């Protein structure tokens, strides 16, 4: 949960997106919202790595978290 060093007066946020694998029921809505970052495996479960999200995907990531029927998508680092 760190804020990056200020650059030109703005603070860079690092945000990561994870899935709670216990809550996940493979609805796959997250992959619809965020196909640039989330892929589904052959059983319908999302594959996400723990890397930092690029800034342009942050809004979509929040949307994916909201859209998940079981609230299994977790964002951290804001």
């Amino acid at each position, binding site marked *: 949960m760190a804020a990056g060093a200020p650059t030109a007066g703005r603070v860079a946020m690092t945000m990561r997106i994870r899935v709670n*694998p*216990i*809550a996940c029921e493979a609805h796959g809505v997250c992959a619809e919202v965020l196909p640039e970052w989330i892929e589904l*495996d*052959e*059983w319908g*479960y999302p594959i996400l790595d723990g890397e930092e999200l690029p800034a342009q995907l942050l809004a979509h990531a929040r949307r994916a978290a909201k859209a998940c029927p079981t609230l299994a998508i977790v964002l951290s680092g804001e």
Partner: protein
Amino acid sequence: MTAVASDTWPRRLLAAVGSDDDDLYAVHLDTWGALPDVSGPAIVEAVEGSGLLGRGGAGFPAGRKMRTVAAGANRRPVVVANGAEGEPASGKDALLLGRAPHLVLDGIQLATRAIGADEAHLAVHLGSPVVGVVRAALARRGTADAVRVRVHEIPSRYVASEESALVHFLNGGEAKPTFTPPRPFEQGVGRRPTLVNNVETLAHVGAIARRGAAWFREVGDADEPGTLLVSVSAQEVTRRVAEVPTGTTIGAVADRAGVIRAGIGAVLVGGYFGSWLPAAYAWQLPLTHRAMRSAGAALGAGVIAILPPSSCGVAETARVLGYLATHNAGQCGPCLNGLPAIADAFRRLASGAWDERWWPALERWLAVVPGRGACRHPDGAVRLASTALSVFAEDIASHRSGRPCHASSAPAWLPAPRPPGGWR
């Protein structure tokens, strides 16, 4: 790394091992004396100074863990002693609790002092023979213990002894792992900071509090000192528990256990979630976390399972993978789908009912399953399978092309018990 001769293995944890007829408490007091009157901070300092690493598998510095739990406490912390040995090939926790429980029980008291806990729990497997011994030992100690230790019998399932599963069970839930963070050291039993330690770790604490950090460091590897309990299985021996100085090579342990090296091709190190290693390489590998990591393996639960010359590594792996697949908690998609698929593929490999179209699927599963469960169960199974593919490469090639296995009629070697009913 110090190479230690096999005749200088001191008995520390196993110094006061009793038999069924002995008064275990009397034997213990004879060897170790009464519980020392050391203060909490002094205990933490001694454990930190000793360099003791957790003996449950993760190898995390025990002193640092204590300090973290103690520091994080806005609420009274809790001590949980994990004696629920999930590894079928491991016997060290059962030996400690069944024949030398008092050092563990001392360790629990010292740990409560160290972190300021007022509550302590000890988890053992439901129906295990150690339950009676442990309850009797606690009764024997009576009021000598400042904190009452509650004994819990948990279902004997592989994942039940995982840290978060244990805490979940103690909180009234099923013995299934939970999504972390928060980890138990932050929020555990009753949402309080919880110190979960393997019983062997606590036994070492019991010894260190009496003899000191310097004494602990006298034996074993310079960076990861002390002694270690390992469970050796081979053709000649089944789950023989030995106390060895850290840094001792696997070969030295095998020799001491009477294992004949000729004809042995591979060794399984760590546990069912561990790694296969080629025997020639394994013999000279020291038992330290460091050395294991650089070998692509892990010390894990201290299991050293030496594949008998007459057994087939592929068949054994297939059976263990089947075991791991039936022992998953059924909570996470990648694990509950992926493990049976991988186990199935290995079963086909081992039995000769192989179809080459399964190969790309197997590779895909091994790539896509790890790291995507709530606990490390799928990771361990994949590590077992992947190391099997590389160590038994020749055998795998034979199996793939349908040539019969040289050991297809060998009896089953590694135990694979069925899961009991229920999660509570």
